[in-house]
């Protein structure tokens, strides 16, 4: 784009807050009661990551991959792209994250469990923020029940929940798996701020906390060559 530096984020906010919330509402109505299933899946995933059985190394990344793939297709491509042409690129990024997660699972690149107690507690807090905190904040910000975003079906809680679950990996720094969720939180936080949504800052703030925890765990537990 010519002189792209003259554009602000506001130049790419193509719709009103009302339109976005109506889109969430119509989407939620269309997929109900899948949100209950994905919420239960989120609880099961964090419990499995906490326990850290060997089979989790494959199952958890593959389950997360399925959720990212679903959000890419059902939310970004089928719905969000109808009001935001950038959503087709968001869909591609979510598919890329799904592929990274799936590859990590199939190749056995990450293992869960055996992490310090403080990290377990922190991870549960971040996942709880994704499963319950984000919808609660959205509700407090004035959204209707049918406009709330749920883990596994909407991008924000899915990104935060993934960051939380990945805090339970034995390897201290699975950075390739963190890049897209962190980038999404930064980009969409800025976007929602520009849109004027009252809960806009929650997403990047929770992501920042997850990032800080990840850095802290990497500093406390240097990468070992025998991590696998």
């Amino acid at each position, binding site marked *: 784009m010519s*002189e792209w530096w003259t554009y602000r984020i506001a130049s790419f906010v193509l719709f*009103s807050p009302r339109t976005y919330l109506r889109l969430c509402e119509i989407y939620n109505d269309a997929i109900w009661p899948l949100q209950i299933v994905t919420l239960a899946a989120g609880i099961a995933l964090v419990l499995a990551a906490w326990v850290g059985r060997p089979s989790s190394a494959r199952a958890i990344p593959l389950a997360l991959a399925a959720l990212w793939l679903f959000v890419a297709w059902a939310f970004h491509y089928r719905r969000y792209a109808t009001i935001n042409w950038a959503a087709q690129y968001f869909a591609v990024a979510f598919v890329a994250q799904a592929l990274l997660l799936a590859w990590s699972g199939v190749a056995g690149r990450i293992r869960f469990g055996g992490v310090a107690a403080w990290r377990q507690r922190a991870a549960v807090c971040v996942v709880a923020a994704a499963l319950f905190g984000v919808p609660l904040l959205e509700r407090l910000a004035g959204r209707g029940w049918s406009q709330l975003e749920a883990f596994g079906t909407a991008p924000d809680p899915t990104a935060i929940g993934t960051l939380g679950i990945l805090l339970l990996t034995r390897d201290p720094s699975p950075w390739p798996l963190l890049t897209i969720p962190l980038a999404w939180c930064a980009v969409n936080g800025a976007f929602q701020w520009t849109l004027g949504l009252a809960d806009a800052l929650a997403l990047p703030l929770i992501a920042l906390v997850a990032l800080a925890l990840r850095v802290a765990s990497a500093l406390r537990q240097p990468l070992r060559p025998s991590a696998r």
Partner: protein
Amino acid sequence: MRSPAPNGRRAFLGSLAGSAAALLLAPRSAGAQQPPITRAVPSTGEALPVVGLGSWITFNVGEDRTARDECADVMRVFFEAGGRMIDSSPMYGSSQQVIGYGLRKLGMPAPLFSADKVWIASGSRGAAQIEESRTHWSVPRFDLLQVHNLLSWQDHLPLLFAMKAAGRLRYVGITTSEGRRHADIEAIMRAHPLDFVQVTYNAVDRDVEARILPLARERGIAVIVNRPFRQGALISATRSAKLPSFAADVGCASWAALLLKFAVSHPAVTCAIPATTSVAHAQENMGVARGPLPDEPMRQRIATLFAKL
């Protein structure tokens, strides 16, 4: 090179013809209304009401049927009040599809003046994008196509002029917004036989008064004004301010009406395109196209007022 702007008689006759046409074409419910003020497109003399309808943000409602019907209601009120120009762009998400939905629902109103844009970096894909836009609108051809924000204008302008020469388009234009690339806009206005130029103009953003608006008059180029309310920010700024008493002299009962009167009262401006999702606001906007317009001293007072807000 094009000839200078047409003389006053041609413009006057164009306005007269346009007003008469608007009267004939307007639905019965609007029959008792005074016809809207029109300005002539300098290159043809065709008259256009000074208030049109934009679609940035407001018409991008996706597949939400309820919201689409609300947009169609805005369009219905717009046409009933004698409106003609609706403006959109491929950049505006689903706005083109929503306009098409509204037009089909309203039975493709004959007064429609369809203004759209080409907005794609690839020059070779411009024609395909235009055809896709036309399909969204459900119109046989566009009245006006503009190069959006001068994106790849070197490739798209020749295409638009070729379409016009082939009778597949009536008018060619370029656009900018928020003060971007005014030097380039000016250079293109001087070098190419444009019919329209679209710029941001309101009581605060007045850069175009210095060079672009005078140049448009000199070159006989119609001017479309976008962001007359600065996307609502100027109206928000007046929230606690009292409407000045002189607003009543030009028939304005609100700050929004006064702002819109300011934009359309510049003699070089052909049409302003405020966007709204509200039927009441659409009616208020079209009301601006009736009654007296501010003279130059009053325009200065309006600008001074907003400079202080």
